């Protein structure tokens, strides 16, 4: 088979099209960054300058709590149970089974509780915010709101974002409590330990520095879920397929950002 001679004209054209493609991608990337910055500046400006929609905020708090509490209860109890069952054999080998309640409590309160609660809420709340707002965009409800002299940022986005930022820490504390209860159940599979004594052992090793950063971290997790869910929904396209895209993108983006925020939070906590 004769060796194929590269055509210089084709090679130049391919290189040119590749360069223009990269340029286009770069341009789109920077446009997206600019859009996000503009969105955040509008949201925070409205948050501090316009009247706060308190009724809508309460409604969103109820929806976030009510929609997630069941799922968080089940997940929390399983996480506590599994963590205890998995850790116990290793601790028994070292004769350190007495530190099990404290160890599980610290890992749940510092990391497992906030991260698992946030990831569940990203799936449950983030997707619902993305889908709801994008469907309102598609069916012109957001336009109708504007015509009715209502600022959609103020009425739709700020209450959802603030409600998520307030409710996720509360749900995290609840998940922590349920997780510790699950851990007690796990301990009682092999041993017999009263709940009162288990809790006393668990909290003996806990300090303020374990709980406070976790709550602050959950607040940022909530803010990320609210802001991303609303951004994806509010800026969705006009077609019906945009609803699915917005919901999916809200979950993926917020989950990724949660992990990044967690990484940053861990580094900061480590310095304290």
């Amino acid at each position, binding site marked *: 088979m004769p060796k194929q001679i590269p055509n210089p004209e084709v090679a130049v054209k391919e290189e040119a099209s590749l360069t223009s493609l990269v340029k286009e991608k770069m341009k789109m990337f920077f446009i997206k960054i600019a859009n996000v910055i503009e969105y955040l500046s509008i949201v925070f400006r409205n948050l501090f300058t316009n009247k706060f929609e308190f009724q809508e905020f309460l409604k969103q708090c109820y929806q976030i709590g009510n929609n997630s509490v069941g799922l968080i209860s089940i997940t929390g109890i399983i996480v506590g149970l599994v963590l205890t069952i998995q850790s116990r054999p290793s601790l028994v080998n070292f004769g350190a089974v007495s530190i099990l309640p404290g160890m599980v409590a610290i890992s749940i309160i510092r990391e497992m509780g906030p991260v698992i609660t946030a990831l569940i809420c990203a799936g449950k709340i983030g997707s619902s915010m993305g889908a709801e707002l994008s*469907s*309102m965009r598609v*069916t*012109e*409800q957001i*336009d*109708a*709101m*504007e*015509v*009715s*002299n*209502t600022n959609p940022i103020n009425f739709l986005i700020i209450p959802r974002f603030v409600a998520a930022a307030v409710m996720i820490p509360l749900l995290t504390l609840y998940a922590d409590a349920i997780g510790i209860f699950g851990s007690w159940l796990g301990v009682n599979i092999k041993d017999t330990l009263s709940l009162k004594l288990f809790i006393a052992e668990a909290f003996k090793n806990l300090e303020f520095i374990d709980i406070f950063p976790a709550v602050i971290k959950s607040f940022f997790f909530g803010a990320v879920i609210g802001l991303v869910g609303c951004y994806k929904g509010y800026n969705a396209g006009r077609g019906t397929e945009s609803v699915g895209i917005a919901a999916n993108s809200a979950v993926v983006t917020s989950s990724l950002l949660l992990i990044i925020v967690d990484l940053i939070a861990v580094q900061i906590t480590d310095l304290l």
Partner: protein
Amino acid sequence: MEESNNKIVISIEGLTKSFGDNTILDGITLHLNKEENLVVLGKSGSGKSVLIKCIVGLLQHDTGSIKVGSHEITDISEEELIKVRKKIGFLFQGAALYDSMTVRENLTFALLRLKEKFTTDQVNEMIEEALENVGLPDSIDKMPSELSGGMKKRIGLARTLVVKPDIILYDEPTTGLDPITSDEISHLINDTRDKFKNASIIITHDINCVKTVADRIVMIKDGKVYKEGSLEEFTSEQDPYIKSFFK
């Protein structure tokens, strides 16, 4: 001339609007008189909905001027835009009822956001009256998901009427409805005008609706006003493009 100017409630001159390289409106000039039903006719994608969204400030036009009463919409302040929006009611293509609210809440929302404060009794009275006007007083506590397409349009109209606007913009009010319901909605547009003495712009390509409601017709083609005149002038027109609409 002064007298005819006093009759004009919306005046549009040389309006242009583009999305990227795509020019949608290319120098539209038209006006709307008091208590007049003006039909804007044109095929899908001709920029009819863009035109009325520019009027109410939902879209920012590129060049030209839109005057609503004494208010110029170009570079209007937020306070002035609120004043304009208090005068204009907008019936969206799909009615755009808020899914998470009942019919009562939909109407209350529009009323309390656009008008001054009212007592609960006053609000209830005004909502009931608006629903009576569209013939759906029993739907007050229903959710939008429980309503048919025609009922949604009626409730959308009630939400528009509850604030007693001087001008109503109808965006394809009969699209997606069966012929009987379309006819009912068309007559409701006329009844509304007769009762409330408001001026209306009706965006449509439904010729039966045009025949029922039109006092005057403006046809848009390629972003420009193609023809303006009465229903009789349009129906007797020999231009093939116009004839294709009225055949």
